[in-house]
């Protein structure tokens, strides 16, 4: 019987697939037979990826050195001991000597690593003023309240850059010297200290306040540097493109680390003879030891690392892929057994 529109009762529901809940649907029947190929395929793919990742991670070279200076471990212990209990610690230098038997494949990145340093501690992490850092003049004069107690100096001047993060800026510095031949002179390896921050951070997020009479110093006039700093922010570097809030060390530091053990990029080695990497030979890293970490049980490390498409050295991802892939294969086999053993039974059930 066909229903004409007029013959329909006023309250008759529409007979559509939607209202009658008969929409065509994919009904995933999760059973061994269907999941089998899925598991095997996924397992194989994961193992393949895992192998790739593992080898590419293994291909990355890393050279690291702990220069915290725990008792007698290195010549930095002197500095460490000297700085003990004094803040700010006196200027102190130490060096790390190492030699490369073969070429350290480039591009080589120089990192420093801090451990046990809680940049992600909430009260630390919020203690900054992004508007000030973006060069907003008003924010320069009136730092955000979050910066307290590093908002205003003792003299009542606004601190620029304000806040605990800026105040705790990492201030060790490194220089790399290469001795081509044994007994030969050490040549300084040029460290590219630019381009270590995110492009967007350096170009957009961090801006210096508008220059006053073409002078950055005047722009910052009437502000105080953070208490731990020895020099004002506009003197962080002599390079006008790398000083003030857009100093790349500063920008890198301000991108607070996710975990209490973290690295920060210090420099890239890519210039001159060193664009292909660090050639074999003896090296010396001169360290200006300023940053006190021993008070909180932290360590400072210096790391040379090459870089691949997957970033720094990290075997975990490859291994994890391998493990998960193997699990998938294993499950696949279990399901194969299940499939073979129980399929007949299920068929019987259905009959």
């Amino acid at each position, binding site marked *: *019987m066909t229903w004409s529109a007029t*013959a329909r*009762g006023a309250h*008759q*529901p*529409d007979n559509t697939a939607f209202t*009658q*809940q008969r929409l065509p*649907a994919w*009904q*995933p*029947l*999760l*059973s*061994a*037979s269907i*999941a089998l190929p899925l598991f095997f395929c*996924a397992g194989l793919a994961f193992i393949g990826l895992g192998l790739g990742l593992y080898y590419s991670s293994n291909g990355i070279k890393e050279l690291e050195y702990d220069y915290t200076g725990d008792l007698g471990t290195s010549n930095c212990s002197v500095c460490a001991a000297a700085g003990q209990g004094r803040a700010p610690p006196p200027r102190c230098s130490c060096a790390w000597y190492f030699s490369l038997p073969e070429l350290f494949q480039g591009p080589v990145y120089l*990192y420093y*690593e801090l451990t046990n340093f*809680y940049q*992600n*501690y*909430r*009260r*630390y992490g*919020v203690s900054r003023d*992004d*508007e000030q850092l*973006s060069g907003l003049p008003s924010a320069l004069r009136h730092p*955000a309240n979050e910066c307290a*107690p590093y908002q205003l100096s003792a003299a009542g001047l606004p601190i620029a850059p304000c806040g*605990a993060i800026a105040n705790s800026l990492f201030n060790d510095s490194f220089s790399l010297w290469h001795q081509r031949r044994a007994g030969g002179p050490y040549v300084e390896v040029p460290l590219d200290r630019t381009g270590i921050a*995110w492009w*967007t*951070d350096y170009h957009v*997020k961090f801006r210096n306040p508008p220059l006053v009479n073409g002078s950055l110093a005047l722009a910052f006039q009437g502000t105080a540097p953070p208490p731990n700093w020895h020099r004002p922010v506009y003197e962080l570097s002599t390079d006008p493109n790398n000083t003030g809030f857009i100093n790349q060390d500063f920008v*890198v530091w301000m991108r*607070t*680390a*996710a*975990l*209490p053990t*973290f*690295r920060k990029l210090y420099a890239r080695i890519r210039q001159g003879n060193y664009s292909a990497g660090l050639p074999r030979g003896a090296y010396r890293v001169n360290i200006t030891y300023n940053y006190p970490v021993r008070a*909180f049980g932290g360590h400072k490390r210096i790391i040379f690392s090459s870089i691949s498409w*997957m970033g*720094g050295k*990290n075997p*975990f*991802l490859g291994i*994890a892929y391998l493990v*998960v892939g193997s699990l*998938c294969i294993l499950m696949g086999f*279990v*399901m194969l057994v*299940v499939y073979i053993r*129980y399929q007949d039974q*299920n068929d019987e*059930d259905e009959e």
Partner: protein
Amino acid sequence: MTELLQWARYHWQRLVSGTPRDDDERPYSYFSLLACGGKPSRTPRAAGKHRVVVPHLWPFKDEYEKFSGTYVNNRIRTTKYTLLNFVPRNLFEQFHRAANLYFLFLVVLNWVPLVEAFQKEITMLPLVVVLTIIAIKDGLEDYRKYKIDKQINNLVTKVYSRKEKKYVDRCWKDVTVGDFIRLSCNEVIPADIVLLFSTDPDGICHIETSGLDGESNLKQRQVVRGYAEQDSEVDPEKFSSRIECESPNNDLNRFRGFLEHSNKERVGLSKENLLLRGCTIRNTEAVMGIVVYAGHETKAMLNNSGPRYKRSKLERRANTDVLWCILLLVIMCLTGALGHGIWLSRYEHIPFFNIPDPDGHVISPLLAGFYMFWTMIILLQVLIPISLYVSIEIVKLGQIYFIQNDVDFYNEKMDSTIQCRALNITEDLGQIQYLFSDKTGTLTENKMVFRSCSVAGFDYCHEENARRLESYQEAVSEDADAAGPPSGSLISMVKPRAPSCRTVHNGPLGSKSSNHLTGSCSASGSGEGASEGPHSRQAAFSSPIETDVVPDTRLLDKFSQITPQLLASLDETTPDPPLEALYIIDFFIALAICNTVVVSAPNQPRQKVGLSALSGMPIKSLEEIKSLFQRLSVRRSSSPSLASGKEPWSGVPHAFVSRLPLFSRTKPASPVEEDVSRTDRSPQGSGTSARPIETEKRNGDTDVAGSKAEPLPGQPLASSLCYEAESPDEAALVYAARAYQCTLRSRSPERVVLDFAALGPLTFQLLHILPFDSVRKRMSVVVRHPLSGQVVVYTKGADSVVMRLLAAAAPDGPSLEKQQVMIREQTQKHLDGYAKRGLRTLCIAKRVMSDTEYAEWLSNHFSAETSIDNREELLLESAMKLENKLTLLGATGIEDRLQEGVPESIDALHKAGIKIWMLTGDKQETAVNIAYACKLLEPDDKLFILNTESKDACVMLMDTILKEIQKKNPASPEPASLSEDLHRPPAAQNSGLQAGLVITGKTLEFALQESLQRQFLELTACCQAVVCCRATPLQKSEVVKLVRSHLQVMTLAIGDGANDVSMIQVADIGIGISGQEGMQAVMASDFAISQFKHLSKLLLVHGHWCYIRLSNMILYFFYKNVAYVNLLFWYQFFCGFSGTSMTDYWVLIFFNLLFTSAPPVIYGVLEKDKSAETLMQLPELYMSGQKSEAYLPRTFWITLLDAFYQSLVCFFVPYYAYRGSDIDIFTFGNPLNTAALFIILLHLVIESKNLTWIHGLVIVGSILSYFLFALAFGAMCVTCNPPSNPYWIMQEHMLDPVFYLVCVLTTCAALLPRLTYRVLQGSLFPSPILRAKHFD
């Protein structure tokens, strides 16, 4: 938690509305057409104070100001809000939900600088969104109410204006107390009015109360005494009386007051004088009255109650788990606080990251730990799903949408579909364990069909009638498949329609009536099916199957011997056969007049048939009892649009009728023209009895000559009379009498006119009616017999009662007495036989009284009527005095046919593990037979009958039965405890003895006593089915209460009548059948269906789906929140428990609010673990819901464990992947978030058994919205959201292969266990649900 808050909210609402009545206590929830769902916003004045109403005309101005000035006018406002107060009031209401308060608390907490975790504004967002959504919903609802209010307020009525000295049009809202109002027929009453004038000569006015209580039958109202006698209309100018009445109250059945004339004479007012707002004037040309209550003080408005509020089992379960979540939250926060304290004590003096306060002090670890606790609560707040409650509400709306839109629930005969009146217990439908069903009207059609009668000891089995019914039955079942649209008009009728014709050809009927094929073809097609047309309820109880009784030939033969001469020799001692004839005459007179049936002619649908000029002793006795509530059940107004031509037509009965000599001889001729015009004028008006004529017309289309005789006015054709009876039984008997040419012609309060075949019209002076009540179980009429002049009492009632009231007769007495004994024995035998066949039996008896006897009784009765104290008892006593020493005339058997599809439904529900109890007021045999007929009891079931007269016997019997069951069922363990018994798998019960239990009302009374309850329940637990017969409404509800509270089971009660209301309200789910017995059951119910058979789909399919959907969705919500929040928690271990979030706050908030909110809702609305067909075919699948398998405490904890595992994977895979790198906080959070999104969404895909394009759309949409948001936010937010700055992070990551690798690995590793589990489950130990999936 929510339970508490709902409770608080509810009570607060009650407080505000000021109506101190409890949901559970109020007997019926009356529902007004005029103000749906609103609640009175004004407090009715305390009872006891009186209201004085004086006319609102200027001579009384001062007085009016004094008395009536403060009464509210007729403007109504059911809206909760106005434009001005909407925001504050809505907020105020919303904050009565504990969940909202909790989130408000969090917001406030975040404003405390010491514990602040997020930016202050951000925490407000979820709350604001939720509040806004609810506010919009409330606002829209309120706006709809506002529009309805406005519409109603602007309706026009006629109010007397002194200025113009006539009745002028005025808006309803301008009507005030004391106004005189004049209403015409079919107008809606604007306020509560005291009736002062009616054009009806008897001073009667009929009102239809369907707007008030859904009952479409008419009720009589009377003009105030003293005014009825006036011929002319009351002149408002001259009206100088004043009315004093009680303060406004919500009791529809009470109105007390008096009218005081200027001469201080007082006239009592009762509810009979009150016209209630919202009712419609019917059958009366015009009425006039004075307003006593207006607007919100009218009874209709005071009876408005809000929607029903119930909490489902699943939600109660979910609420406990919310509490678990709170505990979990507290544990996590304590961990954070403790961890932070310890961490801080290690680094207390490191100014690098332990930042001192501005004053240089460093916060102590202990204090910091304490603050951290609160910070953590803010941070991890998402664990308590704010969106859960909103989502549940949305999902339930969706579920209800689908239930209401299921075409399978559509009843085309009534053009009605399922009504969901309770919005929040859909999932309870999937967990029903006990079903309590009424019998009459629920399992059966409540269409009483006269089947058999026994007169003077002879059984007349009416075989032809039986055959007619059988053919109907087949036609119906055939017709059900064809599902033809009810035919519209005569024209459309004549068109042959294929399916209908098939019906006829297939049925036995077709062959029989082949000569009438064209006629009966179309007719039978719509046959019985169409007879329940959309407005059939108005022409209640009069489908052809009921009205057209085919007489028994043997009885007809005896009838033919009846001559007036026979009656003339009434007083002489007559030989046996004539005596039998007398019995027959009396029997049919009793059938025809012993009732409260109202006769109306179909061509004057709203006109009573009565000789209005009758004079005589007006007996307005027993006013207080039902007589004035005689259900006249007359049709509604005959507007053609309403009728829309779904008039039942049937030629089938005619096919038989016309072949019967008697009928064809006396068949009244009807003018065709008259017929056609009548049909045109009021298509549905031509009553059922007109049908044979119509058919005849079609049959003999060309032969219209000789049928021109006009029916006499006031003397309508016998077959065109409509009988409108209080109960269908009565109508059936009257129709049966009509079949034997004993036609009830008219009835007025004073007399009854009867057309008796051989004797001509007989006019009985009606002396008294003792209406039916459930205590006496009988009714009587006292008439003066027109032939003998004697006072005769005709009594009709339940056999058990009437048999006891018969005049005692010794077996060895005179021959007359001997014969009586013989008749009694025979009749009892026949009665037993009828009951065995499942017929409803009634006994007919009479008593001849001498005038003195009667006078004596009458005086007694009057004193009873006029007494103030225990009037009811006195009246009962008086009735007892009248109804004894009866002479048995005979008995009738009336069949109440099973509804279509009932046995199948019961069978399916049985298989679904639902225990079905039938609770009926019928007698045991009838009930048992119906139980067998509807497969409630199987033929090989062992039947135990509990029918004892004393409690001790009851105990003994129950003991014996229990022992017997245990003996036969050695396998099943002794039901040591009820709970154990309950959890015994139904399979075990099935394996053993199949037992049914029948218990009668009296025994039930014992069984319901405290001491026997346990034993009774134990006994019933052993039985597949329980039949309670002779149960009172109260017992019904007590049984439900007992089972519900003692067995802790989910109960469903289904019924159709007022007697089921209490049961429906007590059960977890009440279902009303919108049938013939008014709307009270529907009004009290949570769901209203039109046929019992719909119940099986409602439970097995929708119930199952709703339960599975909602429980899975709730579990998913818990999973989702725990999994996501734990990411934050794990991070605390690496940030010194400092409450840092590695995710941008906006993303964090939106994650729950936006990115992952729609998929679970869609899942909750659309999930289908099995197709509807499978669920219907395998009712066993329903058991999973009964056992709450989808949501056990175990399931909850497994879900939480899985959530923990997934969050661990989701956190630690990225953690190890990025450990030791130069990653910053928010860059680290990005892959976590992204992976979590994929995990959470794909988890849903794994759990879904049914994925449609809508799922696909929503999931893809969620993912896209996440990425789009992250990209847009990352591109635009340079400094906007310190310190969590997402600037360019997503963009960086989208170019980073490691990001993808991490996300893929995380997602796969997190979902692997669940996927494996599901796969293995599907193969190794498929649940019945999965197994059934293969059948799809």
